[in-house]
């Protein structure tokens, strides 16, 4: 059946901020949806609060609402836009839950809007565990024995029946939030208690443990004619017990016979039909008993998921794009396979390669978080690699993670005790379990020993043994023969690994390899194992005979992406890379993307002219450059858009003779190397906070004493504030250096004067060598000391004077010129006592580029790409890519707020981790609120990031000594707005001195009072508090503050930890009380003069 012409306009719901369990894969899927719908002439209305997405670029929809994804805002948008249909299956769990809420409040019915993709009944059947169990039973499948519980008492009774350990799974949550495995009643109380709170329906499922079983996932698609195909089967290397998002996964399944695979396929077909997902994709998870083959159906997602993105990248079958076409009426056989051009989409991709996905974690950011992997997803990103064998794909994937601990190593002279320790520790899955497995096997553990410790299928263990055996051959004395080198490369060994086994340098190996002409060829991901010709140049490397890179005549520009998402480097950088690709393609260059993150838009084969799915290491990038130079002219490589990953490769690429487009590696070094940068500032007459570079502990202490405490200390060359801390005295400085750095003259530590209570300012600008274009000046809402990535900020700035603006512009231009920037530069300033300090400059695209671009309507990343290939700002102004005159000008008031993953992590004792902001970045994503006033845009940003601010109720306030004075005004305002104030004794007394009445509450450390008076923590935990203001003292969690903040996070109560944030919240609440509640599409904002 062709296009359903009754659908003239569709509301697409995005997935909001990047959080753990819901990352940029939904930008990828949503962007595809928007493209498909617009290509069909359908009006697209889009809602997404995440400004860093490609989908929220104004050209991807007819009306783009950067608004909170809540039923209230959605209803208002539906009322304004009156779409015919809502497409909610491509925006993750957020969009699906939002659609269900719209149904429940009657919005869909009221405005006659229908859900396309999956209807309400199907969503309920897929997501409601009881209904789903019935379906599984009906189609002849088996579910794990389980019991639905709605109270903790239910849980305790159920656990007795099922026997411990039991698995806890809350309903309607994403990424396994709130789920876990309980081995005893104490653990059950903690896990199920949290699960009941996180589940919007307050129900959890307790289930028999199938820990250690094999785990598989099938991606299924169905059209309205009931044609069903399996796009991809994925096998988890980590058996049941580790969330699939945290597991190392492989496609296709490696350890099933056809008979067994077809059983899973048959069940999948029956399930999708019975659930009634009429059109689109879903994924179904299975556990298989490794001894008997018994199959348990675990769950299904009646929507496009993270696994769908992975499956799309793994197979070349674009699930989201096809799902959208199915949703508007097409059938699978009416849709062409993009890659072959001649065959239809009604087929099942077949792979002639192996895909391995490995998760990327961020435990180092949450020092007190429990590093054990469970059924709650904790990874923040992932890397995928493709090879012609499992070992090749695995080793490529491990180096794609950009973790020096991840790739396999082969240490010599390890005692037996190490092996035993590894065999013991690998029983508990953690980030580096696979490395432990490899090391144990290397040290002589048997496959059976490792299997009984991990239940990782013996086939995978044997593959690792083969890698280890190869390492022995490589390391053996004698010549490194051509055969040996070639087979090592075929098994995925990097030049670095071979070099370290041979005791020579990486360059030595590379030279020898090139001398022997051992270079990778590039194969094509084509959905069909070469049965049909592929027209889409989506390549991966392999050491084989025949390359498939085609000759070309147009000059190529190679864009390096940003690798796996991590805290500090995520979707914002992908956004800039994608923009560069679009712009350069339009300028008639052949754009070539190199990246290894399967979630992204940049790794959509539709984005660039050619896609190389490769690790972002020097070796892998050099080989891509070489291959493309054989294929035609190459202008050079753009390294300034993908964040620190490509930037870190620039100097080595240049040294290897590669042309770096845009800002030169020398200029990058000038900005990053503190001594050199200090000289630049000095020449330009700019000031930075006093600082010093210490290469020893003693030196650090001397510097700190000279410049005065507090000081900010960190290792040099880091992104996202990793390993950064504010310390107030010698003792804590010493502690930090011992704990967090390996200080040596090669790894110096920076010691900066920390500016208390300064206003921090972020600037994104373009410079072409002559002219500066100031993209935007953002003022942070939190004062200096909170990492800029975690700080809320506003554009235009609210407190800077016009003179200060001029100063900032001048300083930016001086730095850009002094460093020698050609393209984008991001500078952080601090304004303290009317002095403008330069904190740091990054000559690259920053995290805020997409936010500034959305707020001002100026495509900074596109302009940067143009400057990189030689255009001037004057030319870009003339052709209209940049405004004809002047700088970037914000339309309305836009607030960016960071989203933090506190609720994802627990300490090993099962309690929450401290929810306090600091100089180390911890946020996973961001949202944007845009409105006419600061109050409303701030309030929107809070609603989008955390949930609504209260309009009335009780506020708990506890201010650190240094914050008491600045907390008076907002506290007074809240009191006048009708809020009840509750404060700890010190704060209450201080407020009373200033004529503000507050009820005193006991600190937790004081315990309940004589007459049973409850403590602040009790009040929060019982839900009697609507807003928490708690500013911490320095770093180091004081027990009281920590308990207060974690209680707030667990209860999902807004918790504000700075007085600046307090002030902003008051403005937001005032706006809510005034009933300000507007929605407006970005296109309208940008059309404003």
């Amino acid at each position: 059946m062709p296009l359903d012409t009754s659908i003239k306009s569709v509301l697409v719901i995005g997935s909001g901020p990047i959080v753990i369990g819901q990352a940029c894969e939904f930008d990828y899927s949503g962007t595809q949806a928007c493209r498909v719908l617009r290509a069909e002439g359908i009006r697209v209305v889009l809602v997404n609060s995440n400004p860093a997405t490609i989908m929220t670029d104004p050209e991807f929809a007819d009306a783009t609402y950067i608004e909170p994804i809540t039923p209230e805002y959605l209803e208002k948008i539906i009322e304004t836009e009156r779409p015919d249909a809502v497409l909610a299956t491509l925006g993750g769990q957020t969009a699906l839950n939002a659609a269900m809420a719209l149904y429940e409040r009657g919005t869909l019915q009221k405005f006659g809007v229908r859900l396309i993709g999956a209807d309400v009944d199907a969503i309920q059947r897929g997501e409601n565990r009881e209904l789903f169990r019935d379906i599984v039973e009906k189609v002849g499948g088996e579910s794990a024995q389980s019991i639905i519980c709605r109270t903790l008492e239910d849980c305790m009774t159920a656990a007795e029946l099922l026997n411990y350990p039991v698995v806890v799974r809350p309903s309607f949550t994403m990424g396994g939030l709130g789920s876990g495995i309980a081995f005893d009643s104490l653990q059950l109380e903690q896990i199920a208690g949290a699960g009941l709170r996180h589940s919007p329906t307050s129900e959890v499922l307790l289930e028999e443990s199938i820990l250690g079983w094999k785990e598989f996932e099938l991606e299924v698609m169905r059209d309205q004619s009931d044609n069903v195909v399996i796009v991809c089967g994925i096998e988890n290397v980590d058996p049941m017990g580790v969330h699939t998002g945290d597991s190392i996964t492989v496609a296709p399944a490696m350890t099933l016979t056809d008979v067994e695979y077809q059983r899973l396929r048959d069940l999948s077909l029956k399930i999708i039909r019975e659930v009634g997902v009429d059109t689109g994709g879903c994924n179904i998870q299975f556990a298989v008993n490794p001894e008997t083959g018994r199959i348990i159906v675990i769950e299904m997602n009646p929507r496009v998921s993270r696994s769908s993105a992975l499956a799309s990248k793994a197979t070349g079958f674009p699930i989201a794009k096809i799902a959208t076409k199915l949703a508007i009426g097409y059938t699978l056989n009416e849709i062409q396979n993009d890659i072959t051009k001649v065959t239809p989409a009604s087929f099942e991709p077949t792979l002639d390669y192996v895909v391995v996905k490995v998760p990327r974690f961020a435990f180092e950011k949450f020092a007190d978080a429990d590093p054990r992997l469970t059924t709650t997803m904790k990874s923040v990103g992932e890397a995928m690699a493709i090879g012609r064998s499992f070992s090749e794909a695995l080793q490529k994937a491990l180096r794609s993670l950009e973790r020096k601990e991840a790739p396999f190593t082969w240490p010599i002279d390890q005692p037996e005790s190490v092996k035993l320790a590894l065999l013991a520790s690998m029983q508990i899955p953690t980030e580096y379990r696979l490395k432990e497995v490899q090391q144990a096997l290397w040290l002589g553990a048997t496959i059976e020993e490792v299997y009984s410790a991990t239940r990782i299928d013996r086939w995978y263990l044997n593959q690792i043994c083969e890698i280890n055996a190869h390492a022995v051959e490589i390391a053996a004395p004698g010549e490194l023969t051509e055969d040996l080198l070639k087979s090592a490369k075929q098994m995925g060994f990097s030049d670095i690994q071979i070099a370290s086994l041979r005791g020579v340098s990486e360059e030595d190996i590379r030279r020898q390899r090139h001398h022997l002409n051992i270079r990778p060829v590039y194969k094509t991901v084509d959905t069909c194992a070469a049965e049909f010709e592929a027209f889409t140049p989506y390549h991966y490397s392999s050491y084989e005979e025949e390359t498939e890179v085609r000759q070309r005549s147009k000059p190529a520009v190679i864009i390096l992406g940003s690798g796996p998402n991590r805290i500090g480097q995520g979707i914002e950088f992908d956004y800039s890379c994608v923009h560069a690709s679009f712009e350069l393609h339009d300028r008639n260059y052949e754009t070539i993307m190199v990246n290894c993150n399967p979630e992204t838009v940049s790794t959509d084969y539709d984005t660039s002219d050619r896609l190389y799915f490769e690790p972002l290491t020097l070796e892998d990038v050099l080989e891509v450059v070489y291959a493309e130079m054989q294929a035609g002219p190459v202008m050079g490589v753009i390294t300034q858009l993908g964040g620190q990953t490509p930037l870190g490769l620039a100097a080595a690429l240049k040294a290897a003779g590669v042309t770096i487009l845009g800002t030169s590696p020398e200029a990058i070094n000038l900005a990053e190397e503190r001594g050199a940068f200090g000289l630049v500032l000095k020449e330009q007459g700019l000031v930075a906070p006093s600082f010093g570079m210490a290469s020893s502990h003693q030196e650090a202490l001397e510097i700190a004493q000279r410049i005065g405490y507090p000081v900010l200390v960190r290792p040099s060359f880091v992104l996202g504030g990793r390993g950064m801390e504010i310390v107030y005295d010698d003792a804590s400085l010493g502690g930090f250096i011992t704990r967090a750095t390996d200080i040596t003259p090669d790894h110096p530590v920076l010691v900066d004067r920390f500016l208390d209570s300064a206003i921090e300012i972020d600037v994104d600008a373009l410079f072409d060598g002559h002219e500066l274009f100031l993209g935007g000046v953002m003022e942070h809402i939190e004062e200096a000391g909170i990492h800029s990535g975690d700080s809320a900020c506003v554009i235009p700035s609210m407190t800077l004077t016009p003179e200060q603006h001029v100063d900032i512009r001048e300083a930016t231009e001086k730095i850009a010129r002094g460093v020698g920037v050609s393209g984008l530069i991001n500078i952080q300033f601090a304004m303290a006592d009317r002095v403008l300090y330069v904190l740091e400059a990054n000559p690259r695209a920053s995290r805020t580029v997409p936010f500034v671009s959305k707020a001002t309507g100026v495509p900074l990343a596109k302009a940067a790409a143009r400057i990189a290939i030689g255009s001037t700002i004057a030319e870009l102004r003339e052709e209209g890519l940049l405004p004809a005159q002047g700088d970037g000008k914000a339309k309305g008031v836009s607030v960016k707020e960071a989203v933090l993953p506190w609720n994802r992590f627990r300490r090993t004792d099962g309690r929450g981790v401290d929810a306090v902001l600091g100089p180390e970045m911890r946020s996973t994503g961001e949202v944007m609120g845009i409105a006419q006033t600061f109050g409303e845009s701030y309030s929107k940003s809070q609603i989008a990031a955390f949930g609504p601010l209260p309009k009335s109720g009780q506020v708990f306030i506890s201010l650190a000594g240094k914050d008491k004075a600045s907390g008076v005004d907002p506290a007074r305002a809240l009191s006048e707005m009708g809020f009840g104030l509750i404060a700890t004794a010190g704060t209450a007394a201080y407020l009373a001195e200033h004529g503000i009445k507050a009820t005193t509450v006991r600190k937790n450390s004081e315990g309940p009072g004589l007459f049973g008076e409850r403590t602040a923590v009790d009040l929060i935990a019982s839900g009697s508090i609507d807003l928490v203001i708690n500013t911490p003292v320095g770093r180091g969690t004081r027990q009281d503050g920590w308990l207060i903040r974690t209680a707030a996070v667990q209860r999902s109560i807004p918790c504000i930890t700075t007085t600046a944030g307090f002030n902003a919240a008051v403005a937001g609440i005032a706006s809510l009380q005034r009933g300000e509640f507007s929605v407006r599409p970005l296109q309208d904002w940008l059309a404003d003069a």
Partner: protein
Amino acid sequence: MATKAYLVLDDGRVFEGKSWGTTGKTFGEAVFATGMTGYQETLTDPSYHKQVVAMTAPHIGNTGVNFEDNESHKIWVAGFAVRNPSTLTSNWRSSGSLEDELVSQGIVCIQGIDTRALTRHLRDRGAMRVGIFSDMNMTREEMVIEVRKSPSMAGAHLVGDVSTAKTYIVPAIGEKHFRVAAIDLGIKHSTPRLLSERGVEVHVMPFDTTFAQIQELAPDGVFLSNGPGDPATMNEVVDLVRSLLTAEIPIFGICFGHQILGRALGFSTYKLQFGHRGINQPVLDKTTGKVEITAHNHGFALQAPTDDTFTTVYGPGEVSHISLNDGVVEGIRMLEIPAFSVQYHPEAAAGPHDAAYLFDRFTEMMSTKRVDA
């Protein structure tokens, strides 16, 4: 220790790899199969007789071999080419390693070659003669000459090699509803099993069974199996089918059997460039408009009009199924007499079970026929 091995194509292209399975030399028609699972079924499928099969899936042998999944009593492929054979077997049903099985059955194999390059070569230039040589002291030229001396698939009559010598019976499971004569042109174990599950007693009969012998059995229907070789050589079986058509005995043919039914109706067959060998092939059922994902293994196809019904001496018929990938005829059916066939494999071993309904269609046809009578 594996020694050097060469896969040598008729057109002179040589792939160097290492020996696997048995060392020595072997010849056949080079084909590629794209299934990611099911190598055991593929190896034991008689339709692959005299073919050297290259697997596009890079890892082969991971799950070893087991007793249940054989499609016949032996491995039929003439040779086997893979990228990465497994050195360890991991599966709860496994009874042994694949390599041991290949060695014990004397199958000459090659590993470590660029199977994707080979596939692309065959795709672009067509299936052709091939040899695998390992542990041979021969020059490339000598190997190519030997390959060119080997017999070609066009015109090959191979059914005699694979068919049963005498009739055997697969009893119906549960209550017996029908008796079917299955002409073994290279039948796979799965087919009689799927029929028997539907209450059919299957008499698997040699390829040279006569019409009189079938009449003697008085079956409710006749099944024409898959098999190897060139359908153009199958004149005797074609004549048998014509007698069945005249007698209006219900007929269901698959693969080779489909080609033979087609020839009996007066259509010709032709050799495809590189054939269909995979378990992901979309076929459109023209009657229902539905797409089924099916298992294919055919190098020849039927030439028949796909846009309209056709007339034959046995009455009108139509093309019922077509390949969505390339429009090849994938099924035909007669409109007034009970006979139909599909080019693909509803028994799907290996492969998806989407087309299993065809066995039901066959039993329905037999029961309708009986009701009519």
